[in-house]
């Protein structure tokens, strides 16, 4: 770069930063448009890492990316990215990008770097389709797809339609089962709708923030920056960090409360109880909006494979109505003192938080993610957070509310909204509910009753892999995840425990962009496009749907994932019919050209057609047969479906607007988003005016109407404290907690592929308490062996305090395949959500 260009680029960078500071503060920067200075073409995109969903403008010159800029028009991030944005572009260009299909001829080479040979697409597709067809015809229970919260919406939609309607198989689940399932089940239990009521805008207005087991500063940096801006804005804003270990998020918190693992359940209950016994509940809000319940208790844990079908396992979802008095009586056990005794947090500290909830003028925001969700009572802990907010009426108001943060860029948009789960259909619909199946049949033009074959939910993630490990799976296909690194209990699932060698017997197909731990176990690898090498759509934690445009071509022979699904579907469904018509044409004829055996149109147009079909699920007025079932015109069902509740806008609106939070409503010819669900007020200001006018009731307490909930009332369900699956003992004296750090993401399958980048990334370390180290004779940097009842792993110990665990607890991130910490992590899961508890494995630590 010559000096004048350098001066110009630097001046541009500086002015963009000053402009963005204004945008982040809610002002319009001087001089208007922020982006400029480049010679290339600019494409709109979204970061492909975390659930924050930051907008990014990608500048392309001569077919390659030359700059990235935070998108000032994306309201989720308002021009900011975290430092991971620096190497986003570089991720596309790692030397070992997969560019040709690969086939493994000898399954005995699985688990090694050898054994895969290059193949043509034709050979690889024929092989995969043949294996799938044989396995499918023999026994549908022995095939599965494991998808992802990183698959764009149209990709997840095609997949769901192929698997559920094409193969009539429910064995499809996403990696979001490992991160969001507890939040999802609680959303459905409490509100009967899977969504956060508030939005990121609450971060700009809250008076009190409470982080529950969430290292937001590292896992959701741009949102943490928004929280910090609010704190530094001069207002008397407080942040309480409730955590099991000191993290970067603790550093600037006003108060840090370190609690004993699992006792968050009791702390939240003590706050609810404080509101009840001190008459500090919002009684008008309760009277208008809340129904009370109790639920099944003494659930034990999923130690055995047969847990779900056991007597107790079958009851876990049971609830019974209760009066407020009955609910209060159950809650009364949770005095501040009792919670203090269980948690180790002082009664005075818990009371300090409770008083914020008790103050009707204080806006309180609870924020949580994996600490709450990856919990042996993860669904319950989500409930207990909602209970505090429901009792105090601190919900559906700007600056107020419980906010479940998501881990992956489109865990909400694809895994949840498209419904890639074993029990779901698109848009919150359930396979088990007849009206939901009829509605889906209407949209997919299937004969009435066609989907009755998938009435029973399929296998959830851990069940899929437990069955596979026992040799009960013939075919597994995975995409956009790295299961061989991120699943818990890898000692079992990777067949290191010789009792479980199923991974070597199952035919495994992996769609990937780089060689990973999972491709080491693949029989076939399909090389695919990543990030902006194709167009896609993400849905982030605040209900925002955003399109990322195709900016560059995928390398070599790498293809769009959807192309691989349809090529296999076309082969597998050969000769199959639906209602007398060719099955493949019936499902995918609207985007596929039989003659060319390829997409029937340009890339954007295919995305648009797919999205427009998907959009009918939330716009029943677009298809009369669907609308009839939505409105229950025949009266054969119990109620209306209210599918407009999650209304999405036409595809091109998203291209224009850099993302919109649903429901998006058409008012006077304009599509307006919703920031605060169930809150009455002007739609133009982000309130749920259209939804309430259609299905809700005006004039209720707090100007709120929960029109999607049964009887218009969310449920406050009493959920007690029940202990973790295992408690430290003489043999295994430590808790082992796992998580993530700022510089990496997920399993490192992308970030670790760039050799030079490795230098800048932190080494995988086991953070330990200094006293524990002293006792065990371990020094900073020593290699230690961490052993649990599940397996063991060697890792370097650290006392550098990247995170600072209390005595008796240790922490490691899970980003490095060479230090596979999940070999030692338990696969115990929350009985309701089936989401594993990655945070509380018991271990012993020995110096190697």
């Amino acid at each position: 770069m010559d000096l004048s260009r350098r001066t110009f680029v630097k001046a541009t960078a500086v002015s963009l930063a000053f402009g963005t500071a204004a945008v982040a503060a809610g002002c319009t920067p001087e001089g208007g448009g922020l982006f400029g200075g480049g010679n290339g073409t600019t494409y709109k995109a979204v970061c492909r890492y975390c659930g924050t969903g930051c907008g990014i403008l990608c500048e392309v010159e001569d077919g390659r990316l030359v700059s990235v800029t935070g998108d000032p028009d994306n309201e989720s991030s308002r021009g900011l990215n975290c430092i991971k944005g620096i190497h986003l572009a570089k991720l596309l260009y790692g030397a070992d990008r997969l560019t040709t299909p690969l086939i493994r001829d000898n399954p005995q080479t699985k688990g090694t770097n050898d054994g895969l040979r290059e193949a043509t697409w034709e050979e690889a597709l024929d092989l995969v389709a043949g294996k799938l067809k044989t396995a499918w015809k023999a026994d549908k229970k022995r095939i599965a797809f494991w998808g992802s919260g990183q698959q764009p919406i149209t990709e997840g939609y095609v997949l769901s339609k192929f698997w559920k309607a094409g193969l009539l198989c429910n064995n499809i689940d996403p990696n979001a089962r490992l991160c969001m399932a507890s939040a999802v089940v609680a959303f459905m239990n409490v509100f009967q709708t899977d969504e956060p009521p508030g939005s990121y805008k609450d971060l700009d207005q809250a008076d009190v923030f409470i982080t529950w087991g969430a290292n937001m500063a590292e896992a959701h940096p741009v949102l943490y920056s928004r929280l910090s801006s609010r704190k530094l804005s001069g207002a008397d804003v407080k942040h309480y960090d409730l955590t099991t270990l000191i993290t970067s998020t603790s550093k600037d918190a006003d108060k840090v409360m370190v609690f004993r693992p699992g006792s968050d359940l009791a702390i939240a209950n003590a706050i609810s109880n404080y509101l009840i016994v001190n008459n500090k509940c919002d009684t008008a809000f309760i009277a208008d909006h809340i129904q009370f319940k109790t639920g099944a208790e003494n659930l034990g844990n999923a130690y055995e494979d047969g847990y779900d079908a056991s007597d107790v396992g079958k009851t876990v979802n049971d609830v019974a109505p209760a009066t407020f008095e009955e609910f209060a009586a159950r809650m009364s056990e949770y005095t501040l003192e009792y919670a203090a005794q269980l948690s180790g947090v002082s009664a005075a500290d818990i009371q300090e938080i409770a008083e914020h909830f008790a103050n009707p003028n204080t806006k309180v925001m609870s924020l949580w993610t994996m600490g709450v969700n990856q919990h042996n009572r993860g669904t319950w802990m989500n409930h207990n957070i909602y209970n505090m907010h429901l009792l105090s009426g601190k919900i559906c108001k700007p600056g107020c509310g419980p906010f479940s943060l998501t881990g992956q860029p489109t865990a909400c948009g694809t895994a949840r909204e498209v419904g890639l789960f074993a029990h779901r259909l698109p848009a919150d619909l359930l396979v088990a509910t007849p009206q939901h199946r009829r509605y889906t049949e209407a949209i997919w033009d299937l004969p009435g009753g066609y989907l009755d074959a998938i009435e029973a939910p399929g296998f959830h993630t851990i069940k899929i892999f437990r069955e596979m490990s026992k040799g009960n799976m013939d075919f597994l296909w995975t995409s956009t995840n790295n299961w061989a690194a991120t699943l818990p209990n890898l000692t079992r699932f990777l067949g290191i425990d010789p009792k479980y060698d199923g991974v070597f017997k199952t035919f495994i197909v992996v769609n990937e962009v780089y060689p990973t731990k999972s491709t080491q176990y693949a029989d076939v690898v399909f090389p695919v496009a990543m990030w902006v090498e194709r167009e896609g759509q993400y849905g982030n934690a605040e209900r925002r749907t955003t399109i990322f445009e195709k900016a560059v071509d995928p390398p070599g022979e790498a293809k769009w994932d959807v192309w691989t699904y349809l090529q296999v579907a076309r082969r597998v469904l050969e000769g199959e019919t639906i209602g007398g018509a060719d099955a493949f044409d019936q499902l995918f004829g609207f985007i596929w050209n039989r003659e060319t055996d390829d997409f029937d149109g340009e890339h954007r147009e295919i995305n648009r057609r797919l999205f427009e079909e998907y959009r009918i699920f939330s716009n029943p007025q677009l298809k009369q047969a669907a609308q009839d079932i939505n409105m229950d015109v025949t009266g054969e069902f119990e109620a209306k479906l209210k599918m407009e509740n999650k209304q999405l806008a036409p595809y091109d609106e998203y291209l224009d607007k850099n993302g919109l939070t649903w429901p998006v409503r058409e008012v006077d010819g304009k599509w307006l988003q919703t920031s605060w669900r169930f809150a009455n007020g002007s739609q133009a200001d982000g309130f749920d005016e259209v939804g309430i006018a259609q299905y809700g009731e005006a004039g209720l307490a707090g100007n709120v109407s929960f029109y999607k909930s049964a009887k218009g009332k969310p449920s406050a369900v009493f959920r007690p404290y029940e202990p973790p699956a295992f408690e430290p003992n003489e043999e295994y004296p430590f808790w082992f907690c796992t998580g993530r750090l700022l510089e990496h993401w997920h399993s490192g399958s992308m970030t670790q592929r760039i050799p030079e980048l490795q230098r800048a990334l932190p080494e995988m370390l086991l953070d330990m308490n200094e006293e524990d180290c002293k006792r065990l004779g371990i020094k900073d940097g020593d290699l230690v062996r961490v052993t649990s009842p599940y397996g063991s792993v060697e890792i370097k110990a650290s006392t550098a305090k990247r995170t600072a665990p209390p005595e008796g607890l240790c922490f490691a991130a899970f980003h490095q395949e060479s230090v596979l910490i999940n070999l030692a992590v338990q696969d115990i899961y929350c009985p309701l959500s089936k989401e594993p508890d990655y945070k509380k494995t018991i271990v012993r630590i020995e110096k190697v």
Partner: protein
Amino acid sequence: MNTGIIESVREATTDTPNSAGDAPVVISSYLALLRKGCEEEVVASMAALEGVEVHGSEHGQYVVTIEADSVDETFERATKITRLEGVTTFSLVHCNFEDEDLGA
């Protein structure tokens, strides 16, 4: 724009871009939120890092640039800043890597 602190730091540090002329360079800009009360020290420790400049503050956010030889070096320096005591958040705004052969 608040440049008071910045000016005092500029006087105390010498701004030496790590490369000049036609050498490849990656230029990126950031907004930093700093812990209240220690802004001056933190600005000084940021500016003391090679290739790092602090340009002023707006709406409580400090505008920082990093000039480095590569994306990786940029990331390394940015990571260092995120770990400095007193840096509450450090967000990327723009990164130009037109000079770098990303391997395409």
